[in-house]
């Protein structure tokens, strides 16, 4: 098996890349100008993280692939992002809830990785952390306002949370790669993050009047490259240009 750090870098990079691509579809369409710009800022931050992680993955792999080649010339079964980030945008409630759930996980994950003995992983994590702290503060504040807002905003946020919940579990699925990473003391098992993440969600939900679904039935498979149908459509749009005109430059 190849270097387990390659898989970790891919997982971090793919999560950021796919969510950035999804959020960027709101550019020019968000409900208010302020949200439009804020969401585009988040997308750009995530795109920056994806570039660093996929760059690291390419470096660890040591073959001739670059971050761009990893982003534009892999198929769905080679992507390692969680199922949550590939869920369709649907509406602003779903997009915001997806962002919030991602941010809560992302912050905890980066806090751990920023202490990693592998210097490159730690450095990328520390760099991303500054931005992600703000992402989480922002999405958390909006989720609380809308959860505890009007009857309609509450219902829409709750429905979004219910619909996304089983896909959120995809972040906490362990694999053989994670055991290797754990043995190398590079990262902890994904499932070990869940109690901390759940504690944060419970605190926020108390204030937002939203209810965390009780079910812990998780959609699985992303760690082996088994994705939902929607990832194919995302990649088709994202990769179209490079696949049609390979190596074209901006």
């Amino acid at each position: 098996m190849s270097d387990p750090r390659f898989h970790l870098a891919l997982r971090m990079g793919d999560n950021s890349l796919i969510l950035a691509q999804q959020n960027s579809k709101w550019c020019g369409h968000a409900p208010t100008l302020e949200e439009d710009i804020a969401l585009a800022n988040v997308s750009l931050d995530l795109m920056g993280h994806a570039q660093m992680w996929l760059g690291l993955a390419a470096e660890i792999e040591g073959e001739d692939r670059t971050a761009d080649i990893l982003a534009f010339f892999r198929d769905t079964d080679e992507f390692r992002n969680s199922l949550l980030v590939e869920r369709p945008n649907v509406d602003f409630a779903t997009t915001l809830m997806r962002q919030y759930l991602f941010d809560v996980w992302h912050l905890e994950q980066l806090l751990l990785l920023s202490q990693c003995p592998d210097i490159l992983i730690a450095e990328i994590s520390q760099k991303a952390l500054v931005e992600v702290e703000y992402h989480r503060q922002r999405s958390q504040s909006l989720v609380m306002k809308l959860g505890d807002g009007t009857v309609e905003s509450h219902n829409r946020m709750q429905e979004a949370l219910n619909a996304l919940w089983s896909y959120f579990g995809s972040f906490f699925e362990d694999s053989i790669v994670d055991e290797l990473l754990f043995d190398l003391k590079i990262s902890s098992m994904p499932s070990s993050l869940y109690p901390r993440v759940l504690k944060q969600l419970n605190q926020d939900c108390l204030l937002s009047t939203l209810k965390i679904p009780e079910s812990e039935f998780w959609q699985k498979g992303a760690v082996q490259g088994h994705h939902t149908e929607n990832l194919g459509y995302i990649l088709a749009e994202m990769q179209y240009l490079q696949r049609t005109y390979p190596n074209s430059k901006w």
Partner: protein
Amino acid sequence: MTTELPLWEVFIRGQHGTAHRHVGSLHATDAEMAMNNARDVYTRRNEGLSIWVVPSSEIVASTPSKKGPLFDPSKDKIYRHPSFYNIPEEVKKI
């Protein structure tokens, strides 16, 4: 029924500025959201070191129709400008 959120005015103190300058306005439900939105909308290009947000409704403005009595009296009082004094060369800025 209006669906617009309350309006806020945004003031930014830049990298080299000493005073906050009015840069524009935005919509937000409360101070926290106004601050976040100000950060996202007005400091994307590293413009700011400090942000003030003020509810637009809290700003007391002079009335354009009363500008005569407010401003006209000072128009012909040129002796209020310090242009009748010789400024010593040692004084750099005034």
